């Protein structure tokens, strides 16, 4: 993975760490249900842009850290993030060429799949609550996708991450 030509790994690490921070940063009560899926968004961007560098392995490890930080069943977020990145890598040639709002729709669908997988895991554990807020994070994330995409692409080009 780390060929001598690849550079800018620190930027990828930094954005993933920032996403982890944003995931647990306290929000005013009531807004918590609308928290975008920062980690999912960042990993989707990097796996879309550099599928040879950010793959399911990175996603899985990030998920393990998230599981520990959020005190969920170890492996739950790991599985759902690995699934997200797996789908992105399978489809990256296609999604890359879509206009940005269609990309956002794809992001919405993929994040929703990831959330359903989380719900399913919770259901096996015996505590699945399903309400109208369930799909809000995916929706908010999709709405944020154009901004995240522009921002991370700007950073990637500026620091020539490849």
């Amino acid at each position, binding site marked *: 993975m780390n060929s001598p030509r690849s550079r800018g790994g620190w930027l990828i690490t930094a954005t993933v*760490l920032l996403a*982890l*921070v*944003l*995931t*647990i*940063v*306290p*929000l005013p*009560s009531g807004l*918590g*249900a609308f*928290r975008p899926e920062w980690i999912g968004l960042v990993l989707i961007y990097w796996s879309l842009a550099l599928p040879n560098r950010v*793959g*399911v*392995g990175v996603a*899985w490890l990030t*998920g*393990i*850290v998230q599981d*520990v*930080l*959020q*005190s*969920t*069943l*170890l*492996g*739950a977020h*790991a*599985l759902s993030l*690995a*699934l997200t990145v*797996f789908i992105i890598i399978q489809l990256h040639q296609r999604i890359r060429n879509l206009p940005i709002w269609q990309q956002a729709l794809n992001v919405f669908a993929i994040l929703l799949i990831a959330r359903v997988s989380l719900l399913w*895991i*919770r259901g096996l*554990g*015996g*505590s699945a*609550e399903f309400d109208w807020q369930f799909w809000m994070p995916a929706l908010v994330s999709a709405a944020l996708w154009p901004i995240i995409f522009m921002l991370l692409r700007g950073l990637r080009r500026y620091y020539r991450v490849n």
Partner: protein
Amino acid sequence: MRFVLLVVASLALMMTDYRQGLLDPIRQTVSALAHPIRLVAELPSQFIETADQQLASRRQLMAENERLRNRQQVFQARLQRLDALEVENIRLRSLLDSSYDLEQPVLIAELVQVDLDPFSHVIEIDKGLGAGVEVGQAVIDASGVIGQVDHVAPFSSTIRLISDPGHATPVQVNRNGLRSVALGAGRTDVLNINSLPNNADIQIGDLVVTSGLGGRFPTGYPVGEVSAIKTNPGDSFSTIQIAPSGALGRIQEVLLIRHEPAPTPQAEAGDDE
């Protein structure tokens, strides 16, 4: 191919983790490594808190000081009476040959201001292995039971609240000692008792305290007050709602009780997951 392997690995991890305790070393290591993330995430709320304290006027502080001093005096006075009652209680219990553990040592911990999994009711506190926190310790606040320690990491630990849908608290009605189990409902303002028959002697306003069965929670800490009793003539059990005494929704500081369970066969019986 790698994806399939990772899926299998996740499933294996989840199944192992579901049986609690086996993966604690991994969890603790990752948690210690990821601790800086937590510290950074806590910065905004700490900043707000500091600003709040800095900006509080001298007059406000003096007023608060006065108020707290008065309260302290009231409690001190009440405590004097309690001391006498406690001694009397011990004497009576020794006549009855039953043990009663008093004065459990407590550890004060502060809430780490991070948001955890929105689907389960867990909070993070700033004391961990280093301070001697153990899995299963009962956690209370100034007004009632909060929950129990779920995972312990080197610098922090997580607490599962009694309102978590997967948590059950062994309780009894303070008035008559009627025992039951209070289940979390996923809401911070209500717990449910589903296992009392329709003709059970329980009324709205009854204080519900921990029963001490199961060995996790020491006896006699307030859990909540009965707020509603829903009886459906078709069912043999009524649904009893309890309003928790502990401020589950706005926890600031908590007390961890070091509880040495009495060596009874019941001590192992309580599994609240």
